[in-house]
């Protein structure tokens, strides 16, 4: 779960990580104007989006006063940044900056622990710096059972090339940051840039925070921040039913059991020349009820012209799955889309026989994955032409 910058900064403040003076969030230009007036001097207006490249897209503006802040917010609200629509802006007092660095901590699947990344180059894409000037980037693996003491933190920021004027404060900040990172069940705390202000303070000028969704059961305050309003309505509905759903940009609805299996199904649909509309994992023990909710979700997607159901019967037998599909369609009533249902595994033949004998006008049983995908692509093409 990704947090907006303003939420990330609030989290930093809670842990005592020095950051910008608090501002406010505006959803209209009028609110932005009022917030800039409160700031009582130059203010910075920043688009709140869960993606990078905001600066280049014109999502950050320095405003001399309330009028400029209002105009900046008016320009930003509704703007599209890499497919994300700007719905709110952060307005906060501007900081005078002397120098910019980079600091982050993340969970790392390679070292099975945490990784700290620090650089004297800030405010730019860290991967570009790492590619072009690797000597300016320091990466250190941390053992979660040990953590990070101040001496090690100082060593990291000094090796990253931070000047003496900033190193001491940056080391303190890194120790605090690491403690907060663990406490919040974060997978990423990224500060880019970490700024040295003209009055000699080291502060987080930006905050990019991701929280482990699996840990929200013990992070109730963070769980409340989950931004359901920005979710697609279909994704929100899937969340309600506890389904793993990702919306994609094609027209063939895909559902199956098991994440790997659904990914493989998307691949085969693409191989057959089609474009999947979604990723939907009905889960391992796919009960008839889950099947009904899943089918109804995919079929209610207006973009979907045909559906490929790809189930492997293991413990749940294919004859029961076939009945589940028919029951689900019975409950849904008339639907315009045709379904190709591929059953394999335990009692697959019986499952396919049940589907054939039922003779449902919308359902075609299939045996092989590639054949099933080709048929779904064919049906999608036929329907979108009419």
């Amino acid at each position, binding site marked *: 779960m990704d947090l907006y910058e303003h939420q990330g900064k609030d989290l930093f403040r809670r842990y005592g990580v020095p950051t910008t003076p608090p501002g406010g969030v505006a959803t209209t230009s009028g609110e932005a104007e009022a917030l800039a007036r409160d700031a009582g001097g130059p203010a910075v207006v920043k688009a709140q989006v869960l*993606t*990078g490249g905001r600066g280049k897209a014109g999502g950050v503006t320095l405003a001399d006063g309330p009028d400029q802040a209002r105009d900046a917010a008016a320009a930003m609200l509704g703007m599209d940044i890499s497919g994300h629509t700007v719905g709110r802006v952060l307005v906060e007092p501007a900081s005078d900056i002397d120098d910019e660095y980079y600091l982050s901590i993340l*969970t790392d*699947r*390679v*070292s*099975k*622990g*945490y990784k700290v990344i620090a650089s004297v180059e800030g405010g730019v894409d860290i*991967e570009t710096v790492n590619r072009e000037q690797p000597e300016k980037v320091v990466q250190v*693996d941390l*053992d*979660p*059972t040990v953590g990070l003491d101040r001496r090690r933190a100082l060593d990291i920021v000094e090796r990253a090339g931070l000047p003496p004027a900033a190193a001491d404060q940056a080391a303190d900040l890194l120790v605090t940051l690491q403690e907060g990172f*663990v406490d919040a*069940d974060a*997978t990423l705390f990224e500060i880019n840039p970490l700024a040295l202000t003209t009055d000699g303070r080291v502060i987080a000028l930006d905050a990019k925070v991701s929280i*482990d*969704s*699996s*840990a929200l*059961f*013990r992070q109730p305050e963070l769980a409340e921040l989950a931004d359901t309003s920005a979710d697609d309505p279909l994704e929100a509905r899937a969340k309600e039913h506890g389904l*793993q759903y*990702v919306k*994609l940009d094609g027209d063939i609805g895909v559902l*199956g*059991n*098991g*994440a*790997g*299996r*659904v*990914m*493989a199904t*998307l*691949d*085969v*649909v*693409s*191989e057959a020349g089609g474009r*999947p509309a979604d*990723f939907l*994992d009905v889960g*391992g023990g796919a009960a008839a009820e889950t099947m009904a909710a899943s089918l109804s979700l995919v079929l209610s997607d207006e973009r979907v012209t045909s559906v490929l159901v790809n189930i*492997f019967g*293991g*413990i749940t037998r294919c004859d029961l799955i076939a009945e589940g599909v028919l029951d689900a369609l019975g409950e849904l009533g008339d639907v315009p889309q045709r379904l190709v249902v591929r059953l*394999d*595994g*335990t009692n697959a033949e019986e499952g396919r026989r049940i589907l054939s004998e039922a003779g449902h006008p919308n359902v075609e049983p299939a045996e*092989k*994955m*590639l054949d099933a995908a080709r048929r779904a692509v064919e049906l999608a093409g036929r329907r979108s032409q009419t």
Partner: protein
Amino acid sequence: MSILIDEGTRVVVQGIGRQGTFHARRNAGYGTRVVAGAHPRKGGTTWEELDVPVYAKVSEAVSAEGANTSMIMVPAPFTKDAILEAADAGVGTIVCITEGVPVHDMAEVYNTLYPRRADGGHDKRGRPVLIGPNCPGAISPGKANVGIIPGEITVPGDVGLVSRSGTLTYQIMHELHLAGVGVSTCVGIGGDPVVGSDFLDVIERLAEDPDTAGVVFVGEIGGTEEQRVGRWIAEHIPDTPVVAYVAGFSAPPGRQMGHAGAIVKEGGGGGETAADKKAELEELGIAVGTNPSHTAELMIERLDR
């Protein structure tokens, strides 16, 4: 032979609720020796459905019943402690089925089970083997089945399987079976970013197993472990038939595809995509199937069956 679980496997189950009971019964029905349940508040009782004793502590199941393997099905918030308890009790193989375990918990568990060496690697020798979490478990057909893999879809044989994805593995085992090819051991390592055993931990064991003639490994988007596995195979077992499959060619960067670990970072760089993995594996001389059925066909071809 087989690896990790076999006729000598004696299972204690941590998490004896509805799910745990359902799957433990299936495992026992397969012929696996399920010898005890463990539950902090039910020690001294009998697990009726399995007709075995329940102990308050895993260590009691080890000393009283000779349990050497644990199957963990406790809810995610309790998984960290359950794994550490099993390890402390001296259980040699810990199979953790639970999904949704926080990554910080797993990082702590991993570094506690496997102490970090000065070179940054982890010492696994002489330490318990952890499989999972968020995995279907392991099966050595005809000998033992620990977890939720449907035993009826496969038969004993000489192909070793290792995979991040349960249902994809089932598909491949099933198709091998239809072609008359059985399995020595199949291990589902799980789809989380931090799991106890990675591909290589399992493949190194399969490579040493005299009764495993070929290996299928099933990867997916996210991370770059598949490439590391490919390099190890090319260097250490170049003559063993190895076939791979990688899921997620059409997965958009930045989106998590079901498994917590199945995500290509935004921008798509760094070898985390399925296309990158396939290309590098093929360059190393490892055949990569275009779909699960094709992968099974490739294995059969390479075994000359």
